[in-house]
């Protein structure tokens, strides 16, 4: 036997009918064209979804190639400055050899990227250039900088360390062991470049290992600064000395997610 009374049944049917009307009013009605008559507050711009940016082996190789072009461009600029004169004439020869090595490295890593189905990348890494190299060159070429030649060597040394660290760092990220070996085969030569340039900047057997500046306490440039290859940021002190003897220090870091050369990145014309 039902427990509903006649009054309760009437009330229940009334509630059901009202709910249906409300839901129907909220929904889109068939055959009715939206005239955008409903006002909104503020602007609602059209959004463009971000391109998928996957860090693949090919992306890491293209990024390595971009750093090779950063190095090539750095040496080209260094030679164009014409600062390697007198005792530093041998540095010009070293710069030419190192630049040739970087061209070979760029060909090698681009070839590996192409084998993976990616496009080769034949220009410098824009972010590395804009964040580090161009500001450094601005300081180096300032009229009041008395150390243009050695500061140029210091920039090359920093770029070589950056390249060596990048190759060392990608070993842990590449998925193919053969590519890891290819990367470190190039990276070890960048480390040799850095060691040779360090000895130009801070020569002598006593300065091969880590030492620090007696005045500032900052670490001096060293050919072999640590037992294991570091992945820490690289400090580059250049430009006109300040009254306290210190100079502007730029901090260089290996390419990260915002500076990798993804598949959709193309060289700027």
């Amino acid at each position, binding site marked *: 036997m039902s427990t509903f009374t006649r009054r309760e049944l009437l009330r229940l049917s009334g509630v059901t009918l009202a709910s249906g009307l409300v839901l129907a009013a909220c929904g889109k009605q068939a055959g009715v064209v939206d005239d955008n008559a409903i006002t909104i507050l503020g602007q609602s711009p059209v959004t463009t979804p971000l391109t998928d940016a996957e860090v693949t082996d090919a992306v890491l190789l293209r990024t390595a190639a971009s750093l090779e072009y950063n190095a090539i461009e750095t040496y080209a600029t260094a030679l164009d400055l014409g600062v390697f004169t007198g005792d530093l004439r041998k540095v010009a*020869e*070293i710069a030419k*050899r190192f630049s040739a*090595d970087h061209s070979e490295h760029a060909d090698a890593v681009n070839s590996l990227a192409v084998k993976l189905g990616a496009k080769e990348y034949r220009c410098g890494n824009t972010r590395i250039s804009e964040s580090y190299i161009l500001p450094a060159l601005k300081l180096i070429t300032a009229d009041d900088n008395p150390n243009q030649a050695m500061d140029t060597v210091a920039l090359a040394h920093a770029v070589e360390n950056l390249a*060596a660290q990048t*190759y*060392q760092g990608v*070993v*842990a*990220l*590449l998925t193919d*062991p*053969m590519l*890891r*070996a290819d*990367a*470190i*085969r190039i*990276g*070890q*030569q960048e*480390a*040799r*470049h*850095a*060691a*040779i340039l360090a*000895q130009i900047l801070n020569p*002598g*057997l*006593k300065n*091969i*290992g880590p030492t620090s500046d007696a005045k500032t306490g900052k670490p001096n440039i060293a*050919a*072999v600064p*640590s*037992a*294991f*290859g570091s992945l820490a940021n690289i400090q580059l002190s250049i430009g006109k000395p300040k009254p306290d003897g210190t100079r502007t220090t730029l901090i260089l870091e290996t390419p990260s997610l915002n500076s990798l050369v993804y598949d959709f990145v193309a060289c700027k014309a």
Partner: protein
Amino acid sequence: MLSPSDIKLLAFAQTLELTTRDIYAAAVSRRSLSDDESALLEQFHAHHVAYQQALNGLLSKNATNKRDDAIYASFSAKLSEAQNIWIALLEIENIMIASHTKAIETIESAKAAALVASIITVEARHAAILASQTTTNISTALDNNTSALVAS
């Protein structure tokens, strides 16, 4: 957890580092070296001690504590002539770089490969510096013409 293949490769790398450590120890004991030269070689020796220790830590109970006596004997003979010290040490560093790089081609663990890579980049610096003590020819410092030693 290392695979059996990785254990074999890393144990061989440790054997090579133990051998190089002892070769440096033999070189440092030579009286023909200046104080600065001895200090430099002691520093490089300490690095190879650190490398074999790092590999020892990675290998744990699978670690080896034996150098390769044949390689050691071969280089000890080269070190007997004072003028050969730098060239012999350059050669062993280049062999280390070639051998470790060859190992990375097949090491499965990315973590282990990264450790070996961090050793290679500093051994390359050692090689460049050792070369600069023997010649001004930049190619000697940059090029590695040695062959890799592989685990049997």
